[in-house]
């Protein structure tokens, strides 16, 4: 199956970008786990002819050089979903966009480069109510595109809370989330 844009994550960022791109005439697909699905934009997206893979989850990606070629999902098994461009909007820790073990912070889906403080003692402030550094971490980007092992992946655009500096756990971040999604969509639209 081939799309113009495949959006991973159906939260505020993913659905904002998907709705915008679909309404501009691009063929979009959203892979979204049920819980995070943004309902209002979902109706709009489907009405505009978008493909929604609800309750499914991207589990792997095939890269070639500086491009993401295709992804596979939990439910579709060995079916390769291909797209010209991808938006990664899987959020931060709670939604599984970022993860950490005892030794490092990482992006669990594709192993993208992440921006974080290696000194774990700096991650958390002793006061619960103070700003927390761990909420500032995110995937590295260059010209709006993700990096993997230092190489810019030219067709993979992270958006929303997976980006460094955006977190709705630090206060109302809806505006930054929406802006980052619109920027990613605009960059793809310009191509």
């Amino acid at each position: 199956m081939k799309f113009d844009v495949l959006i991973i994550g159906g939260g505020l960022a993913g659905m904002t970008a998907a709705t915008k791109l679909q309404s501009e005439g691009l063929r979009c697909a959203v892979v979204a786990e049920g819980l995070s699905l943004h309902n209002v934009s979902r109706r709009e997206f489907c009405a505009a002819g978008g493909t929604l893979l609800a309750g499914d989850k991207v589990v792997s990606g095939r890269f070639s050089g500086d491009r993401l070629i295709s992804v596979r999902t939990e439910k579709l098994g060995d079916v390769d979903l291909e797209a010209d461009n991808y938006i990664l909007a899987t959020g931060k820790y709670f939604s599984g966009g970022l993860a950490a073990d005892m030794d490092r912070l990482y992006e669990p889906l594709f192993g993208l480069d992440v921006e974080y403080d290696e000194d774990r003692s700096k991650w958390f402030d002793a006061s619960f109510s103070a700003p927390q550094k761990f909420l500032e971490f995110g995937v590295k980007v260059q010209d709006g595109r993700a990096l993997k092992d230092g190489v810019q992946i030219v067709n993979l655009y992270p958006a929303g809370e997976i980006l460094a500096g955006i977190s709705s756990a630090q206060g109302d971040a809806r505006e930054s989330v929406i802006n980052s999604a619109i920027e990613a969509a605009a960059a793809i639209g310009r191509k």
Partner: protein
Amino acid sequence: MPANNEFDVIIIGGGITGAGTARDCAMRGLKVLLVERRDIATGASGRNHGLLHSGARYAVKDSESAEECIKENKILRRIAAHCVEDTGGLFITLPEDADSGYGFDYQAKFLEACNNAGIEARAISPREAIQMEPSVNPRLIGAVVVPDGSVDPFRLTCANVTDAVLHGAKVLLYTEFVDFIKEADTIVGVKLLDTRTGQTSEYRAPVTVNAAGIWGHGIAAKAGVQVGMYPAKGALLVFGHRVNNVVINRCRKSADGDILVPGDSVTIIGTTSTKVPFEECDNMEVTPDEVRLLLREGCALCPALAHTRILRAYAGVRPLVASDDDPTGRSISRGIVCLDHETRDGVKGFVTITGGKLMTYRLMAEQATDLVCRKLGVNKACSTAQTPLPGSMDGRIENVSKCFEGKPSAGQKGAAGRQGDLVTRIRFDSDADRQLVCECENVTLAEIKYAVRELGVSNLEDLRRRTRVGMGTCQGTLCIRKAAKALAEALGKPELAEKLAADYLNERWKGMRAVGWGDTLREMEFMQRVYKFEKPYSYDEV
């Protein structure tokens, strides 16, 4: 000096030792004052596994401790039934233990030592062990069943304090010891500071008992005597649910992280042992190395721990005491240390009770009280081994549940489990009172009101120690504002709610910071999101 400031004995320290000593003294008819600078069980008493030792752990190396343990184990099952859960325990042998000299030869030696100490221990096959406790490491090559259990140390301390009060003792919480009042070579009283009002006061008694755990070192120094104490930090991890139902120990020489204890809704692995400076005792942080070690050893007992969410980490300080006859301090005693400073140092009217362990608190209290009674010329025998604690009067929880009309609710069952027969004092009058505040631990508004009314609660940490509010899998994330509001209203100070919740969250946050990765990190983001979206808990705004 007004007469109401005069007592027969003043006990410093509201941990399990002080609480037990206060109970014993009060039961022998003495007029008792118990002083605690914070809340009950805030030191080592509340910062351990909550293991009801069978004594098996000490059987090979220290038969005296083992015998003490099994004796007290049997007593606690009787007098503190509502604090104890009869989980049973396993001592498992892994293939790598055999390689390091702890194989079947050691197991045989262990069995013999247990039976010599009076601990019923019996070897079972690995297959039987897995049937008994499915979470146990399936690679085990041998297992021994022992009468271990779990004990809620907060509940146990609270029950002792409650009984002391029922026998006429006066208890001052959040009251700090400042100095002794001395007359020549005799301690005749203490100067105290109420940390909430800032007021100082003087109390007098012919005998003062130092039962302040590791902090007893400084208290003894104020009396001009030296007790060679060494703070030994022990770190522990709490897992997000009850992974095992049977205590799992490693059958080898005691080492770090080799005991896994199920307690209420969680499982606890511990512990480490590190000497720390006295300055650190008041505020201990668990280090990454300690966490790594505990996880590694924990997974050897129970592999499922590798992918179980860690709720939090915490640490306590054991008050280790160097033997008096060893000036280097290398020879550390783990046994009970009861010092008469009159015969030892020429300071009259002063006793230190320390060393020992949670398991032997009652025996420690008995020894200290015997000494106090000798000093006061009181001739009355100890009866704490026979007399059940408040909460355990009716024995088993099943009987307690019968006091409810109809089928007890989850909140009533939870309360009966925690408060034992005292649950009859909780007033489940209205629908609001029956509502759950903490859903992880099934704590109702009625139980919170009861704790405020009768158990001396002034903040959410105090409430947690008496009701387990916020101790479950959500760590207060979903209930603490409700609990704070309920507590503030029960205290008659509704304006305190925000501050109570903020303090509680900081304390939970501390335990989570040490284990901030994996699912715990997800929980931490969630917690921040729940409470900070509109930043209601910034101190600047409160």
